Every structure is written in structure tokens, then in C-alpha cells.
């Protein structure tokens, strides 16, 4: 029995307990560089380096990249839509699921938002109308209708995944097709709804903030201000960053993705959480649809087609694990920038669309392969230390 006693020091007694108690104040003693790396994260640091490298290559090949015109219009606009979708997608992927239907949701939202603003009603098949009062001509109402559409369709995804127990990939592959069709069904006679007559609304895409900053010319063009679109994206990203990192909701997302059974046994309501996450992801897709409408001045049922691939690529590139439980909004945003610069760079260099698609596909696979490799390495490290 004396063996047993010796192997088990009482809490707070004996020399063993002092090095073993957690060093709560450790962070303060670390160097500034170390703190910076910790704040950004090691994985994100490599993303930043990759981003710098790609920007350098693009600038070297095409100096026009660094012009206000390009940075503030082409680049920022292409980032915003993918970015919004990717931010919502991050939540779902970190929870160990997937949503392939976000592009289609954006298409539906694009049409419903445009219809609400232009006609105060959404067209339904067979000539029926769903009136939505007080929305005609109102920018805010348009935004709300678009987001509402996204939330609703996200709830459909969530219900299919949780209540019907359909694998998320299959479920949202199905709704990707179904919602794409729905987008045409809610468009009057399947035709786009023009919003050119709504300058209040299209201001979302054309508006600029701080147009008068005394900044030097860049690439032969003067400073024109920061696009409203871009600010909306940054705002949403910040909200989601806070949500994922600082709230109990975010904790639950990571717990579910890391080990759903353990999460449930710790009192997390999986069904409710999963439906909620799909609704959130739908909300960002809906907002993306609204902004697409403003940018193209048309509530077009094909507005969102193809964006899901870029969004999902960005999330995995941003460090999310395919099995869930890992991934950050900061990483996703950095990866969105990376994908955006790559697309923009290829456009400026005159690389053909078909090549761009191949490049995007390769990037997705490379991102996931990289994530898998990182995971395997972490797994090895874990088993090594756990058995030591």
C-alpha cells in the first residue's frame, strides 16, 4: 500500500504539484514576436507568407495589379462574395459538416431580394404572388428579405441533415440542385429582375466610404474610397470571428466538430446547434445574394452559380480540418484574400477561364491534402506524447 501512497501525491503537497499546476501567467513572459505568432497562429503565418509571395509574383508579372482601380474595384469585389460565403461555410465545416448549396441559396436570395424591392412581392409558380409589404423601394427591406431567404433555405438543409439523417455532403448536393431550380421558379417567368431603377439599392455596390482621403495615385488612378461592399464583408467577418472565438456558441461548434458524442454527453444539443449553423451559413449566403444583385443590378437566378467551390476551397485552405474541430475565421479570411489575388492576378495576366477553373480545382485538392497532412502530423505528435 505504501507504493500506492507514494505514487499519488496529495493535491498541493509535495514538490510534484508545483511544476504540474498550470502556468496561468506564462503568456506574459513570452517575447513580443512569440506573442504575435501566437495571436496570428502558426498555420495563419504560413498563409500570410504565401499571400505575400503570390502578391509579389503577380506584381512582378503585372504591375497594374497595384492600382487603386484594381485593388478597390476588381479585387475587393471578387473577394466580398466568396468571402461572405466562406465565413458562413467555416462554421459548418468546423462543426464537421459541409454546405455545398450556398451558391444556389445566393441565387434564390438574389431573386427574392430584387423582387421585394421592385414589386413588393415574390413571384411564385403558376402566376401566384407572395406579397411582402413595405419592402418596395427599400434597401434595408431588400437586405432583410435576402437574408431571410437564406436563413429559411439553411433551415431546410439543417432539417434534412438532422431529422432525416442524411449525410451533409449528399443533403446539400441535393439542395444545390433543388435550390438552383427554385431560383428560376421564384423569378417571374424565369427571367432576371432588374434593379437598375433602384439607385438606393445599387448604392450597396457603387457606394464608397472616405472618398476624400489624401492618398497618392496608384497605377495612374486616384484614390476613390473604400467600397461599401468591402466594409460589409469585413463587418460580417468580425462578427463571425467573435461568434466563433468568444461565445458559447463557438465553443459548441468546435466541440461538436471535434467529437460529436462527447459534445452531446456534455449537454450540447446537437440537433438544435446543427440546424442553427446551417441557418447562419444560409444567412451569409443570402446576404451574398443581395450584394450580387446590387453589383450586377439584377436579381438573376444564375447569380450565385459556382461560388460554393471557391468558398469551400478557401475554408480548407484557411486551415480547417476535413473531420471538423479545427479552423478559424481569420484563416478563412486570409485564404479568401489568397484565392482572390490568385483569380484577380490570372485575370490581369489574361489567363483563360478554363485554365482558371483547373487552377481552382487543383487548389481545392492541394488545400485539403495539406490539411490532411497537417492532421496526420498532429495525430502522430499526440499519440507520441500520450504514450510517453
Amino acid at each position, binding site marked *: 500500500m505504501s507504493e500506492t501512497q507514494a505514487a499519488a501525491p496529495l493535491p498541493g503537497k509535495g514538490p510534484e*504539484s508545483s511544476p504540474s499546476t498550470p502556468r496561468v501567467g506564462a503568456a506574459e513572459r513570452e517575447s513580443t514576436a512569440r506573442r504575435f505568432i501566437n495571436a496570428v497562429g502558426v498555420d495563419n503565418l504560413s498563409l500570410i507568407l504565401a499571400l505575400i509571395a503570390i502578391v509579389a509574383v503577380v506584381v512582378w508579372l503585372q504591375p497594374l495589379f497595384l492600382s487603386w482601380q484594381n485593388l478597390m474595384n476588381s479585387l475587393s469585389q471578387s473577394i466580398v462574395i466568396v468571402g461572405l460565403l466562406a465565413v458562413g461555410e467555416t462554421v459548418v465545416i468546423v462543426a464537421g459538416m459541409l454546405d455545398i448549396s450556398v451558391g444556389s441559396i445566393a441565387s434564390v436570395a438574389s431573386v427574392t431580394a430584387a423582387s421585394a424591392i421592385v414589386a413588393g412581392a415574390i413571384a411564385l409558380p403558376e402566376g401566384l404572388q407572395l406579397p411582402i409589404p413595405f419592402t418596395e423601394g427599400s434597401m434595408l427591406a431588400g437586405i432583410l428579405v435576402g437574408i431571410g431567404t437564406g436563413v429559411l433555405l439553411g433551415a431546410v438543409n439543417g432539417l434534412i441533415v438532422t431529422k432525416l439523417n442524411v449525410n451533409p455532403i449528399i443533403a446539400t448536393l441535393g439542395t444545390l440542385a433543388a435550390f438552383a431550380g427554385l431560383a428560376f421558379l421564384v423569378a417571374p417567368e424565369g427571367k432576371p429582375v432588374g434593379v437598375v431603377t433602384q439607385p438606393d439599392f445599387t448604392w450597396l455596390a457603387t457606394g464608397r466610404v472616405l472618398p476624400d482621403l489624401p492618398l497618392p495615385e496608384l497605377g495612374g488612378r486616384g484614390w476613390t474610397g473604400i467600397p461599401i461592399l468591402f466594409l460589409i464583408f469585413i463587418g460580417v467577418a468580425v462578427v463571425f470571428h467573435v461568434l466563433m472565438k468568444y461565445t*458559447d456558441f463557438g465553443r459548441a461548434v468546435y466541440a461538436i466538430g471535434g467529437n460529436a458524442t*462527447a459534445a452531446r454527453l*456534455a449537454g450540447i444539443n446537437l440537433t438544435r446547434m446543427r440546424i442553427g449553423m446551417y441557418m447562419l451559413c444560409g444567412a451569409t449566403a443570402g446576404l451574398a445574394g443581395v450584394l450580387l444583385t446590387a453589383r450586377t443590378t439584377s436579381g438573376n437566378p444564375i447569380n450565385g452559380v459556382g461560388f460554393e467551390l471557391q468558398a469551400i476551397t478557401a475554408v480548407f485552405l484557411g486551415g480547417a480540418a476535413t473531420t471538423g474541430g479545427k479552423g478559424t475565421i481569420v484563416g478563412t479570411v486570409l485564404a479568401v484574400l489568397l484565392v482572390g489575388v490568385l483569380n484577380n492576378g490570372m485575370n490581369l495576366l489574361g489567363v483563360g477561364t478554363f485554365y482558371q477553373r483547373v487552377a481552382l480545382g487543383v487548389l481545392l485538392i492541394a488545400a485539403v491534402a495539406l490539411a490532411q497532412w497537417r492532421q496526420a502530423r498532429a495525430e502522430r505528435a*499526440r499519440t507520441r506524447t500520450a504514450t510517453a
Partner: protein
Amino acid sequence: MTLIAPTEAAPLAPRGAGGALEIRGVSKAFPNVQALDDVSLDVRPGEILAFLGENGAGKSTLLKILNGDYQPDTGTLSMDGQQLRFANPREARAAGIRVIYQEPEIIPGVDVAENIYAGELPRRGFFIDRRALNQMVDRELAEYGFERVLPRRRMGDELSSAQRQLVEIMRAVKSSQMRVLALDEPTSSLTDEEVDRLFALVRRLRSEGVAIIYVSHRLHEILQLADRVAILRDGRLVMVADAAGLTEDVIVRNMVGRDLGEVFDRRRATTDRVVLQVEDIRSDWHRGVSFDVRAGEIVGFAGLIGAGRTELAKVIFGELPMSSGRILVDGREVHISQPSTAIGQGIGFAPEDRKREGLVLIRSVLENTTMAIIRRLTRFRIVQRRMERRIASEYVARLNVRTPSLEQEVGKLSGGNQQKVVLARWLAAKPKVLILDEPTRGIDVGAKAEIYRLIDELANAGLAIMFISSDLPEILGMSDRIYVMQGGRITGELPGPGTTERQVLELAMHEHLAAHRASQQMATAERESR
């Protein structure tokens, strides 16, 4: 129903009889556990040798060494004067040793015939020779009398666990080089008819000169079947004797009979206030279970694996469905549909499999510790980090979790420390009832003692504790009262102090005994009437 007596036909292939399998001075240690300690034993051709011992006595480790899953630290295996060293199960098989575990590998998408001959299917050109395969399998199944219990065409994923074992046994017996066959609790999931067939098969293999190792918890079975009995306790071989002349009494005394009482200090004053009351729970796993746990009381749940104890915990916690019955907390009936409701009612549950069910291994000690109470640590849904860290470090220190920091991934801690994190989570949640399922499984002796002390402290602080364990000395030492379960039912209630392992084992196994005797009487009667 008529039972067909197994045919006494000639064996499919002659089995070469040779020398015994000699196990000499085999030891095997795992971190902090001496699983086997200098075990020497002969397994002779043409005999059935029973391995007995409690959970954790070292039976499985010995089987795994024979199967080539583990290599002994010291000691040797040899046959016919030749020393054997297996790097993997394939090498053990090549030497003629076959170990059949409780959960054999079955290919789900193919039928019984292909499963039996997996890897050595008869071929004609590029194609499987289905006709030859079917003929071989039909002949073999008929030979051993399994043609009705194991339909040749049944797909792998449609097989019961008993049928899976029979497939694995068929895989083994069709090999003419098999010299040693080890069966790990083969009857735990078999029906009586299947048991009869299996016994006939085992006896027949014995007559063919195969050395058979038979692991079982069912004493009557052993006495019926075995020629010799070897008993392991704490990794040591404590008895080897001829089965003839042995009684269940002697066996049980040798299986148990150690005193760990000093680890446990029981200085509690239990109250009369019933905190958890369970009335007549029925479910897929339970046939009417009723019990109660009082404030400040540790109530042990003993029983064999499969008795329904873990499932009982999960039904109470809302993780498994209950078909009828009532659960009362502090005298009020509660309706628990999912774990979050159970937690809301003041119930905590530390599951048996901490890696799969207890912890999110890739997240930090901090997040795992506060997982069940995180909502209470928020203001406007924002987690109050300072408060969270203070609470987490308080419990991490109180449980003496050895971790470099609160940010450490839980998966990187040792087993004992992981278990302490699970307990820290439930302590932080301040429940009224705490259900602990095998809280000391797979952790070292030092950590065990700490956990015992902690459970004692909790009970002294007034918590009602439901303590599920398969470790008899532990459950006897810790519990104020013990419920013994078997087959989804409580078969007895014993006081903690003064109860012997013997009493618990009898309650845990008595129904097997009774049922088996009854079925045997029936079978005999039918045979006679025929």
C-alpha cells in the same frame, strides 16, 4: 424441435499431433501495470485447458501474446523444442496457433461462404469457383452441425455476434495445420443450441489432437468441458489443476481472494435523503430496473460485461431511449429526453470510453473542463475568459491534473490525467447525482488512488454517486451499497462493507447457471423422448 447430434465422421484432414505448447516465464508490463508476471504453463495436445481470472487478471494479454499481437518482455513460447517468436498474428497462424476473439473481423459485403474462405477462395481462371466454394462450405458446416445456425448465404453484416464467432471458428478449423486453438469467452453471446454445437466441436477437435485454450467466466461450463484449469490473478498464475474434483468454490476463492481494503477509506455518514430514484426502467436493454441513491452515498453497480450497466447509465442520462419507467430527482419526477436535460436536472455522467465519449481530444484542457457549464460563464453570450480560467484552474489543481498549461490539447495528456479532466468537468458542473462508468479503467495505480480519494470526498460533500465498475475489489472497497446486475435486471442488492467478491460473482452469474441447467434438462428430455 429436434436437436441433431453432431455426426462423428472422420476429420476433414488429419491433424499432426506433436508436443505441447510450452509457455515459460512469460512477463509483460504496460506503463504502470504488470499485466503478466512470470507465467509458465504447458498446453497439451488433445486437452481442453480453461483460463480463468477476473477482468484484468491477464487472460487477454496472454492470448494476445499467443496470437502475436503482443511480444512478451521476457520468457519464451516453444513447441516441439523449437522456440517461437511471433511478430504478428499471421506468423502465429503459420505456426498453427489460432486465437478467436469475441469480435472477429468479418467482411460485411460478402456471404458466410466467402467470409470463411476469405483470402483463399477457390478459383477457376479469373473467377471465383462458386460451386466448389459452396460445396466445401456446405460439407464443412454439415460436418460440424452448424448448417442451421450459420446459413451459408447470409451476408457478413447480417450476422449476429454469435454467428460471427462461428465464422471465425470455421476459418480456423478448416486449416489442417492448426495445433492450438484459443477461444476467448466464446459462449457469451451464443444461444443454448449454439453452445451445444460449439462444445461438440471443441470436444471433437480435442479428440483430433488439438490443444484448446478456453476462456470463460461461466464456471459450470468450464467444469463441464475442461480437462485442466489455470487461474490467473493480477498477472500471476495462481493455480493449475485437473478439472475433475474441482468445485466452483475452490475456483472462485482462487480467482479473487486479495485484500485491497486499505486503499479505500470509508468514513462517510450517508443520509437518508434519496436523491436519485429509478422505478421500473424498461428499455431495449432493461427488463424492469429499480433502485435508489441517497445523498452522500456511493452505490456500486457490479456485473459482467453486457449486464446492461453502461446502458442503464445512458438511459438515465437521456442518451439511450427508455420505453417505460420513472426517474425521480429529489423526489420529483423528471422527464429526460437528452443529455442536456439530464444536466439541467443536476445529473452528471462520466462515460466509460473517455476518448470516444468523454473528451474532445483536439481541444484544450480549458475548453474540456468548462464544456458542461460554458453557458453559465457567459455575459451576453460572450464567454467571460477570466472567470472561465479561474474556475478551470481551480478544478485542474484540485484534481491534480498534470498538464503544462490550460491550453494543452487533452489528447496529449496521459490516460489518468484525461480521466481527471472528465471528472473536473463534472465537478465544475456541481451536480446532485454523479454517474461514474468505469472511472479507473486503463489508468495507473497512482491515479486510481487519487480518483478513489476524490470520489470519497465528493460523497462526503453530499453528492449521490452511482459507481459502475467491473473491478470487484474496487467496487467492494468503495461502495456503501452494491446492486448486482445481470441480463438487464438487478439480481441482488448487497451492503458494501462485509460483502465478499464471491457473493457478488454468484449474483452476477447465477442466472446463466440456472438457465443453462434448465435448457440442458430440456435438451436431455427431448433427446430421451426421441
